[in-house]
């Protein structure tokens, strides 16, 4: 499973950060096109539970079966 992050959609609301059971989502230091610090996942810790997809209001996450990371 691969997770694609559409970082220019992220508005830094923090819903995914808060709901991630592994607490492995954080915000990047550099702002995106719309002025927010977008999410980054620490893929080492991620268990692909999908919570971030579920809670994200802005369609940032895309879980793509197959492949890795």
């Amino acid at each position, binding site marked *: 499973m691969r997770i694609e992050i559409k970082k220019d959609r992220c508005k830094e609301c*923090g819903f995914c950060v808060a*709901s991630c059971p592994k607490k492995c989502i954080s915000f990047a230091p550099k702002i995106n096109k719309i002025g*927010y610090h977008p999410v980054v996942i620490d893929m080492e810790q991620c268990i692909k539970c999908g*919570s971030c*997809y579920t*809670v*994200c*209001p802005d369609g940032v996450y895309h*879980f*793509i079966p197959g492949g890795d990371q």
Partner: protein
Amino acid sequence: MEKERKVPHFVDNPSNFCPGCGHGIVSRLVAECLEELGQDRNVIYTIGIGCSSNMSAGMKADRLHCCHGRASAVASGMKRVNPQNVIISYQGDGDAYSIGMGESMGTAYRNEKITMITINNTNYGMTGGQMSATTMPGQKTTTTVYGRDCSVTGNPFKFPELVASQFDVAYAARGSVDSVGNINRLKGYIKDALEAQIAGEGYSVVEVLIPCPTNWGMTPLESLDHIRNNIIPYYTLGVKKARGGKSV
């Protein structure tokens, strides 16, 4: 087996909603249900005026933006002539319960075979956060700067309960987007509602509690807490009228 999780094609676009606004979650859930029910190319939305209107920017499905409050009347007109289509009336609480009270009640009353999704953010979001019929007791808004005084403005309005108990409707429920669990349950309600429509059972409605951080003057995460701690106890979640069943 690994399951792809992807925003359905027809709503997969950047949104204009505020950071942490719950609108985006709901519109995605509705789209997912349609996709799963094989109805994503057999749907017409009627969209109310309010922040819901933002949902439609770039949305690739048949949809008509309607006069403020009248979306469910428009939806009924569509359903009556296109009974084979799934018709969804997507409205804010102000749109559906304040200015649209007459039309929303009339639609439920006649048990029109449409599905109404109402986004309850306890205020008029788009116009700057004025009081709505669903504003919580004591809540500060731009028209209740000292907090809502229910003794003059009325008590927060509960539409799903009202139609479930007073009218012969097919399905009514209330969900919330404050947590993964509630989002998943909400998706179930939405699917039930759509299935009720597809089966021709009559009118279905799902009200959704969403955060409006902008007008609540809270961070997105504080907004979720507010829903959990203050709103849900008043606006209880769950099915208010089950399919084929009685009021709950």
